[in-house]
């Protein structure tokens, strides 16, 4: 398989920039459409109703946009790990959704379980991140590294990850139960108005926090030595190994950080929705569509793709029933595969 020189990925070249410009145009178009369709909805409201709501009802398209960014950012946190794991090892980890669940469930046991330590959520979440990182390290060391050493094929590994997903999910189901639960802290909050948008403090913090986390990941990948090594291994494993990068160590770090990030995404998602034993599995297909949309194997692609998926899902409720949100997200992925299989930020290569 042909690979472009590694330098190409390190600097954002002109083609990538033009692609980003196209993408922004698309997003702007989506937003303009959203605002206009919202204006139509407003026109349908009788005059006396408008007077009754003193500040006017919150602008639905803009609120949905914020919700979309929030969900997209949470999705992106979980997706970075999956995409980097694929990039560095070639493994499609179907058990990644369970890593999301495990993070959220560990935090739940520390925070709200009746016989648990009942820690404050921030403390519980921090511990859950450490536990999840350790679990990622364990999975890599005990399972994936030995399997790769035995030269198990990638498709075999993919099916093994499906088995692992079934196994982990049923373990969580037995330990956690089938009923969805919520955390003890930050459960019910009143929405505050910021101009035309209504949002709770919790959601605002989650949205900004997730975007900050994504920024930190981007800085790490761009500036630090291990981040550059990760991108180098994802770009061309053999070349990276030949340049003296310890590939096994890089993969181990990717597993640890990826699992911890998945857990962080899981905790945020559990906070905005509910914690359940299959929450990660239900998110998995959306994570995949985000990654494929952005470009399989790249961290930035995962971020861009997931944000787009979040926006498409929330804004789709303007023109179609809410129950079809997921179908729209998956449809967008299939359409992208049709016209641009390498994804928005992916490099063109033979994939067929």
């Amino acid at each position, binding site marked *: *398989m042909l690979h472009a020189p590694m330098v190409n990925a390190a600097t954002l070249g002109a083609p990538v920039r033009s692609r980003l410009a196209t993408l922004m145009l698309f997003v702007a178009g989506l937003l303009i459409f959203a605002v206009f369709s919202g204006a139509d909805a407003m026109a349908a409201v009788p005059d006396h109703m408008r007077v009754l709501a003193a500040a006017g009802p919150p602008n639905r398209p803009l609120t949905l946009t914020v919700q979309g960014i929030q969900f997209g950012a949470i999705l992106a946190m979980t997706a970075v790990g999956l995409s980097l794991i694929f990039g560095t090892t*070639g493994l*499609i980890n179907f058990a990644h959704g369970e890593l999301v669940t495990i993070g959220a469930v560990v935090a739940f046991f520390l925070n709200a379980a009746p016989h648990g330590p009942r820690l404050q959520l921030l403390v519980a979440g921090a511990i859950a991140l450490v536990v999840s990182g350790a679990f990622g390290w364990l999975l890599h060391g005990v399972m994936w590294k030995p*399997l790769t050493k*035995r030269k*198990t*094929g*990638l*498709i*075999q590994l*993919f*099916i*093994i990850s*499906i*088995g*692992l*997903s*079934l*196994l*982990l*999910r*049923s*373990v969580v*189901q*037995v330990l956690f139960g*089938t009923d969805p639960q919520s955390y003890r802290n930050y459960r019910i909050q009143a929405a505050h108005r910021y101009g035309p948008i209504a949002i709770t403090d919790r959601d605002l913090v989650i949205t900004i926090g997730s975007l900050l986390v994504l920024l930190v990941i981007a800085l790490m990948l761009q500036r630090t030595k291990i981040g550059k090594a990760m991108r180098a291994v994802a770009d061309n494993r053999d070349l990276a190994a030949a340049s003296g990068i310890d590939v096994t160590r890089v993969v181990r770090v990717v597993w640890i950080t990826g699992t911890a990030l998945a857990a962080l995404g899981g905790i945020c998602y559990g906070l905005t929705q509910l914690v359940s034993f299959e929450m990660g599995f239900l998110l998995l*297909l959306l994570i*995949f*569509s985000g990654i*494929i949309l952005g470009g*399989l194997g790249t961290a930035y692609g995962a971020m861009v793709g997931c944000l787009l998926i979040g926006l498409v899902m929330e804004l789709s409720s303007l023109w179609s*029933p809410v*129950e*079809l949100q*997921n*179908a729209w997200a*998956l*449809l967008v*992925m*299939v359409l992208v*595969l*049709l016209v641009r*299989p390498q994804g928005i930020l992916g490099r063109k290569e033979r*994939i*067929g």
Partner: protein
Amino acid sequence: MIVWQAVEGALRAACGPVGAIYALAAIGLNVHFGYTGLLNFGHVGFMLVGAYAVAVAGATFGMSLWVGIVFAILCAAALALVLGIPTLRLRADYLAIATIAAAEILRYVYRSNFAEPVTGGVYGLRQFANGFYDANPIPSGTYGWGSLTFSASDLWVMLVTWGLVGGCCALLFLLIHSPWGRVLRAIREDEDAARSLGKNVFNYKMQSLVLGGAIGGVAGAMFAIYQQAVTPDAFKPIITFDLYALLILGGAARIFGPVLGSLLFWFLYNFCNNLLNSLVNDGTIPSSVLSGTDTGAVTLGLVGLGLILLMAFRPQGILGDRKEMILDAR
């Protein structure tokens, strides 16, 4: 005693309609995965359209069941065409995700509110297969030995479905040993080599997808007929995973792999489930360790564990040939 009861229940499930329907569906998957190397992870989507074709034709439009079965085959073939055009040019792992996504989209659409007039929405459709049971030549009553018995209608479903399984096996045997089948296996081994010999790889893959999809559609139709009811949530992705587990257990790329796999899978699955249930019920396993509702989850976890161990240590399954299972996407 408990063990014998569990064995009996498991035998009934394995030889019964469910085992036969899964064997039929797995034969379709064997065409995709075993012989062509297509990672179709949306096989349940073919079963879904097949089942709903029969149900909608019967319950919504009041057509005859036999028309419904023709529709089931046509719908599954159409789904294969629609799915194949965008995805068959992609690498195997992309195909896997695209197919599972397509199957889920279908499930969301079939269960949505706006489709309710046709598909019955979340509640699905029922009582559309009376024509099938009216044609039952077996006099009513129960048949079998000891406590291992089947009702006449179950026996009729079994007879037809196992008959279809036999027919499909024979058809597949002829196809796979024809020049066409050799090209399919060549594509699985090395797509570029097949292409460089002048074979139109895309066309062959598409034909394989349509054939396997149609078999999956018939399996879905038999499932609908057996249950006399369809609901969208009976077609979750887990069915595809079960099919992969039993196909790999029996041996992919083997004519009788799916049949043996289905028999063994359902025997083991129900044996574990029955045994766990009775152990929980009579208190051998205290309810503080495992409650009655968790036994299903434990059995599912065992399926997962079995899949991991099989793939890691014996990827060719029971009947398989290791040389036929060296699939590598990259």
